[in-house]
């Protein structure tokens, strides 16, 4: 039984550029990591920070948002709004202690299938190295009610690690 951790990435792909890029990668039979599970949106600007958080909460180890290159958005500047939201979201996520590599924004035009494929494969490997996110285990939520249990768990884990070394 293969015990390699397979990260699960949720990918938001915009209908006009990045989704077509992913289609092109497949048409060209470019093989890349099968770890990205795609969601089609009309524009990367449709992606709400809420959706990224939902994906992470529900078991995704990472989220990829892919849109058109700045200046090439089918809806003129939707991708620029994505960029703004993404920048603020990353700040918030870092305060949660969620690693940089777990949420990524990539620009890929409709003809750049290989670019998108490589981005997915790279992200998969970096997430594999980081390990699973395990949001529920690592985060205190429910208005702090679970705090004591989470802290106990983290302390126990650290103790096991130290005992091991």
């Amino acid at each position, binding site marked *: 039984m293969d015990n390699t951790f*397979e990260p*699960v990435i*949720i990918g938001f792909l915009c209908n*006009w550029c990045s*989704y*077509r890029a*992913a*289609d092109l*990668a*497949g*048409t060209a*039979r*470019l*093989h*890349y*990591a*099968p*770890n990205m*599970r*795609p*969601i*089609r*949106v*009309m*524009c990367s*600007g*449709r*992606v*709400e920070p*809420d*959706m990224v958080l*939902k*994906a992470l*909460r*529900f*078991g*995704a180890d990472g989220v990829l948002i892919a849109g*058109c290159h700045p*200046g*090439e958005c*089918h*809806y*003129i*500047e*939707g991708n620029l*709004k994505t960029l703004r*939201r993404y920048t603020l979201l990353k700040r918030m996520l870092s305060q949660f202690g969620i690693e940089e590599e777990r949420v990524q924004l990539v620009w890929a*035009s*409709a*003809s750049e299938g290989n670019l998108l*494929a490589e981005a997915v494969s790279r992200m998969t490997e970096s997430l594999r190295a980081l390990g699973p996110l*395990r*949001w*529920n285990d690592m985060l205190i*939520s*429910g*208005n702090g*009610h679970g705090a004591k249990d989470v802290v106990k768990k983290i302390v126990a884990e650290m103790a096991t690690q130290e005992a091991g070394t």
Partner: protein
Amino acid sequence: MSERVGVYICHCGTNIAGMVDVPELTRWSSEQAHVVIARDYKFMCSSLGQDLVAEDIQKLGLTRVVVAACSPHMHEKTFRGACQRAGLNPFLMEMANIRELNAWATDNHKAATQKAKAQVKGAIERVLHHQPLEPIPVQINSNTLVVGGGIAGITAALELANGGHHVYLVEREPSIGGHMAQWDKTFPTLDCAACILTPRMVEAGQHPNITLLTYSQVEAVEGFLGNFKITVRKKARFVNEELCTGCAICEEKCPKKVMDEVFEAGLGYRKAVYRPFPQAVPKYPVIDEANCTYFINGKCKACQILCPANAIDFQQKDEILQIEVGNVILTTGYEPFDPHRIPQYGYGRLANVFTSVEFERMVNAAGPTAGKIVLRDRITAPKSVVIIHCVGSRDENYNEYCSRVCCMYSLKFAHLVHERLSEAEIYNCYIDIRAAGKRYEEFYHRVMKEGANFIRGKVAEVTDAARTLEEEGKLIVQVYDTLFGMQRRLPVDMVILSVGMEARHDARELGKLFGLGCDFNNFFTERHPKLDPVLTMVEGVFIAGACQGPMAIPETVAQAAAAAARVISFIGQGTVMMEPIKAHINADQCSGCRICNNLCPYSAIVYQADQKVSEVITALCQGCGTCVAACPSAAISGAHFTREQLMSQIEGLLWDVRQQELVPV
């Protein structure tokens, strides 16, 4: 919600079935909640496949359909059609792309099957929240805007006008005609360019259905397919078009000579008040404000004094026009590659190195040398000429692409030099001879028979640094002759650079006005490179001719006619159905914060001050969803991409790694 979902898994021959375990996927799908039936079939898109879906809808009372197959860009229409025929609203169908985005992109069977399950589950969860939607009818205004008055624009305008529809033909220069008006003969027939072009120019200028707006530019664009509002700036000619008879006395008498960089390619002069060429359409001259003595220091006014029709009006102002059209065709053409960028060819430094554009003007009987092939001194005829192919093309340092026309026009030049200077020695230095058109190869043989020397080698340098007595006073072309396998130095009198075609330097800016994208060479991006070269990603905006990619006159005319035919098809339909992917603001939930107002690139959201809520103008909304994502009150819903649908899809996609739900507080 007691929806009845049918799941259909396509084998696509072995395209999907060869990687994804389709029987397992089907079995697993049938066990999922809400799924009433799960079937697999070799080719779901076939009529038999579609019938499977349609029958199940009717016999099993399906309320939702999931098709796991290829990309929705391939067959979303197909399956929507099948649902509609069976009486189910077409928007209650969702596709899971397990071919392009799965089977074709991996060689790992296990992972592919696991991913396919996730994709199907995501689609099932999503489709449960789909709402029935109706396409939105849009009226098509029968006017068309054609931007660019070269052979492409003229062709498109004439096709539309002869079809009975009104066209605005906007051209930046004072006359229509474009680059073709500059040429002498056209390959391979050696038709005189002006002879075949000018009748069309005249027809376009006189056609009752064509409004010619020359010396004009598009400044702003609003609206969408069927309903564009365009702002055009008609620059002041300082000539009253109502009075001017086109006699050209003003041009004759004007004392100010200006180097003509545009039409004469810097080889000849024009006046400050001028028509670009004698057959200009329209016939009205233009005063070049920057070079006119009157505008510089208030003196002269010879044109005004001598004009028999009193048509000169120095006070004339630019005119701003607002026009309404249903469709737009961009035919803005190209620019020749600037060989200054290749210093080793000596253009601009060595006098007798000419570009192809300069040479065309030279051989043109109406050009600055009256058709005589002479050196820069305007007197001496060259005894030897080298024509260098692929200048700026097929070159990683400049443009990687082939410009398609240069081999043919280089052969044309070889022929014309031979025709006029029968004793001249002619060399064509080429990489390949690309003669892929009707009668092109035969033309190549003809030029070979006429005695032109063909040297297969990319020219390294053009220099005047003589090494031998024979080379003194000549231009030396240094080239490695790959067929002989040796370096050659060709001492000649004249060098012609066959420059490639580039996109206009301001193509991107123009594209932005219309919401168009360009590729990395600045040519406009077509909808599909194989099957749809004239439509762009923007509905109602077409492209034709060299602005789409390098091409010669036959291809340009074909594309222009194709674009016109597409527009006529829209006009003929009268009303076109648009996808109902639009945003809607729930006025009860809207708090009037107006965050959404400035986010819309189409200005489709307005603030109703009396009710203190924002509202989406459905006709203008393009469905990007940016406002939907931004609303802090979640008061905006995006049809067919609602929050519930997308969140459910996320849950479905994570079916196998889903952690325990958090306990809500």
